[in-house]
């Protein structure tokens, strides 16, 4: 379960760019390339070591027409996936 007050940031070996509405991520340690869709790119761009999960959720609610509960659940799951994939860590 993700704490709403938690703050995430990309891991030190992660490099990424948002290309149009996609994100390309390179995990340097494992020479792995990951591509994210537009929503994933939006989330990753917001994980800047400053915003809490709650603030990320608020920012996404302004961008996407979706109910808070669903988005909150999807965000928690996505953050968990990004952490498991070695893309982000808690700041």
């Amino acid at each position, binding site marked *: 379960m993700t704490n709403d007050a938690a703050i995430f940031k990309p891991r030190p*070996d992660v490099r990424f760019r948002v290309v149009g509405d996609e994100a390309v991520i390179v995990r340097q340690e494992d020479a792995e390339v990951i591509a994210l869709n537009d929503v994933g790119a939006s989330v990753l761009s917001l994980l800047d070591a400053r915003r809490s999960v709650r603030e990320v959720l608020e920012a996404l609610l302004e961008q996407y027409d979706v109910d808070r509960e669903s988005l909150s659940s999807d965000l928690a799951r996505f953050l968990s996936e990004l952490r498991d994939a070695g893309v982000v860590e808690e700041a």
Partner: protein
Amino acid sequence: MSYQKTAVRTWNENILFSALVELTYRCNLDCVFCYNDLGLQGRPMTLDDYQRFFGDLASLSCLHLTLSGGEPLVHPQFFEIAAKGRDLGFVLRIKSNGHSLRGRTLRRLKEEIDPFVVEVSLHGASAGTHDRQTRVAGSFERLLANFEEMSAEGLRFKINSTLTRWNESEIEGMFALAERFGAPLTVDPDVTPRDDGDLSPLDLSATPEGLRRLFSYGRTDDVVRQGDAELPTVDSKKHCGAGSSGIAVDPFGNVYPCVQWRRPVGNLHQRSIRDIWSGNAKLEEVRRLSEEVKRNLARGGPGMFCPGTAEGLTGSPIPGLPLHPSSMSL
């Protein structure tokens, strides 16, 4: 969304995704077939120039930044320049001859820059051949010692080699060396003309027998021309990403479509890369030519073809004109 699709998109939509920057033409080796135009003159890029340039690249979504030369590590501000690339979140590659990758320099590179990979040049599997090409006695033994140190330090590195008539009999030995150090080896089958048009380096081109030897070695995945390595092969109407998703920049700020395609399309002292990249008739021409190359090759032609090298050799990037014998044999 896969990376392959993103790569296609950068080619098709002219998204600048990869930049190769030649920091200096100075070098601590003296390779016989070096392609740099050592007589080229101009105002060198400063640290501030690189800061602006890299910032613009990042804002254009450019992800891959390669620092090359000459030997980039002999640039007096190499670490400051590379650190700016690191801080701006590029996937950094360093193309080096490996001669100074030892001791404090190596540790600084690992700790301060942490490049994605360092690409190191190997010229043979013996001191006789390697040193003959670099024209620096002891460079082979020093490189092997540096490989040991790089491995111990945990630096990610790969090995590049250009096939020549002097080293073509040592292909197996070079792959064995690479395996010994746990590094991939990529072999470029082509010696290219010097960037000033001088064709004399081609005298060192591999023989047809040497090329057959390379391709029959069963390592064709490891045979890559210099400009090809940044992106995977993509399904595009263009032949390559030169000028569409990639650029090369020389030490004086001249911008080219690719390290191999030395057709100047602008200068960073006069215009920002943002300005050069958009609405540039010279780049539009390169992009159009890339499509024409693709169409011509689809009608039959050499399997591996570099329009930049072709333009350097024949004056035209379009296949169908006489190429150097080694290219024809492929």
